[in-house]
């Protein structure tokens, strides 16, 4: 599969929900497949908190795409039939404007001064991207977790520019528990002695330990108890492959390894920004969810997983019910999912079939 990577500059800037303005910004995008003549086959994929624009295929630097099991030739989201686009969200650290990019006004990296962005801002920037790509509407906007929130927001904010929304392992707002978990992660970053109040770039260090701890906690919340039991149990790590002498159990070794790897590439200010965006999203805003959804024209497919305790399936059902109360064509499907919250990333025949049939119905 051919991967097309582009860096797109938006000189017109973007007014943010916070009231601040980005004078100009860049989005890095990947696209797969071809836009058809009638421009009716475009699909936007929205990434979750730590994802990026590399959704599918294999890239020398970025490895295998985060949704490669679902997106590709003849897969659930078929790149032979559809023109599929994915961008790195604003505030990320994979190439779009964010804390690690240069602020034109100061000629220094933004760092902690990169403005607070929200799910609404992301969707607004993705709409600008859609216009720039000269696409009249998305046949489908889909994503899991924080990506599912963007798909929902798309259907609310731009009802005329989206035909279908795939909202997977998501909720209309983060729960108190979600916010609490994210705060522990942020605290571990802020309390790293190398964080320097977010100005670590000036000191040529990164708060690696903080990011690592944050990611270790994150990983626990993404997996199900059952999966952890079956995969690691109480097995001890063998001496030869220990990442650290203090490690006893395999699960410790796994978390250490995953945390370490993540801390090598993910930016701490991005981590804080992305989790803040996730915590802050509330599709209902100052109204209730039902009122917020009244103008939706898109068909909705909401998928939950029984093994997901971070965004339990019931949270997805709330979206479906609010949609149905507004006479929106909306379906709610639940699968067992072996992987807890992460289940939305993985192919299973029934999950892929439902996505495929939803797209083609």
């Amino acid at each position, binding site marked *: 599969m051919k991967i097309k990577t582009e860096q797109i500059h938006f000189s017109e800037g973007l007014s943010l929900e916070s009231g601040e303005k980005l004078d100009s910004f860049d989005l890095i995008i990947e696209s797969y497949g071809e836009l058809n003549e009638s421009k009716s086959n475009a699909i936007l994929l929205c990434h979750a908190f730590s994802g990026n624009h590399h959704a599918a295929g294999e890239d020398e630097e970025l490895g295998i795409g985060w949704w490669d099991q679902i997106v590709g030739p003849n897969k659930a989201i078929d790149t032979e039939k559809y023109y599929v686009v994915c961008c790195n969200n604003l505030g990320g650290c994979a190439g779009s404007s964010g804390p690690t990019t240069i602020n034109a006004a100061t000629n220094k990296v933004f760092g902690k001064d990169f403005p607070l962005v929200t799910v609404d801002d992301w969707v607004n920037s993705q709409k600008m991207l859609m216009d720039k790509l000269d696409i009249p509407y998305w046949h489908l906007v889909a994503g899991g977790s924080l990506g599912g929130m963007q798909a929902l927001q798309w259907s609310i904010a731009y009802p005329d520019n989206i035909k279908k929304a795939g909202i997977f392992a998501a909720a209309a707002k983060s729960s108190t528990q979600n916010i609490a978990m994210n705060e522990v992660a942020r605290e571990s970053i802020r309390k790293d002695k190398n964080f320097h109040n977010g100005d670590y770039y000036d000191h040529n260090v990164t708060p690696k330990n903080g990011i690592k701890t944050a990611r270790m906690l994150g990983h626990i919340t993404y997996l199900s108890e059952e999966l952890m039991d079956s995969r690691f149990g109480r097995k001890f790590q063998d001496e030869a492959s220990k990442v650290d002498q203090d490690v006893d159990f395999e699960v410790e070794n796994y978390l250490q390894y995953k945390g370490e790897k993540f801390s090598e590439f993910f930016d701490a200010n991005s981590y804080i920004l992305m989790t803040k965006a996730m915590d802050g999203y509330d599709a209902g805003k100052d109204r209730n969810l039902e009122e917020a959804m009244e103008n939706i024209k898109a*068909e909705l*497919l909401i998928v939950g997983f029984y093994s997901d305790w971070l965004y339990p399936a019931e949270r997805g*059902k709330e979206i*479906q*019910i609010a949609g*149905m*109360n507004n*006479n929106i*064509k*909306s*379906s*709610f*499907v*639940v*699968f067992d999912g072996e992987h807890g919250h992460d289940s939305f990333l993985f192919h299973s025949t*029934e999950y892929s*079939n*439902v996505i495929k*049939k*939803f797209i*083609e*119905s």
Partner: protein
Amino acid sequence: MATKLSKIINHWVPENSKVIDFGCGDGSLLKELIETKNILGYGIEINNLKIEKCIEKGVPVIKQDIDEGMNEFKSSNFDLSIMARSIQCLKNPNLALNRMLELSRRCVVTLPNLGYWRCRINLASGKMPVTPELPSSWYETENIHLCTIKDFEDLCKKENIEIKDKVFLNKDGSRGGLASIKPNLLAVEGVYLLEK
């Protein structure tokens, strides 16, 4: 089967109405009603393979175990609720009937008739009925609350549910001439329009 059923209940379904179908299976009945009556239909189904079929047809569907509750659909203002060939599978059929009539003023219920003569012959020979309409053995069947036409109508009376209309079906699913004369003995299935 769905085509016939949709023809039979067609004139009970208002144009452009909002309909919920409990135990919607592969969504064929809703699909027929969408095409003929332009309804906005939602199916409730527990089986993932059937859910997949609904989505394939473009019929909105919700995964839900009906026994675990129907209250959450209350706020949706349905005009009609349907339960075709499913009520006998529920733990509390009488509760479900009442819940449906809280969701919508009217509901359509269809059920297999255990009083059908073939079933009676089976029972008379000392065995649980296994017929083309009720093909599973007693230990495998999902039909845990089978009843006769008479039983069902007695339940409606007891629950103050008004039977606005009814149709009795032959074994080929068609509207029965003979079946209507002595439904408890000759009808394979009863189709009811209920109101409370």
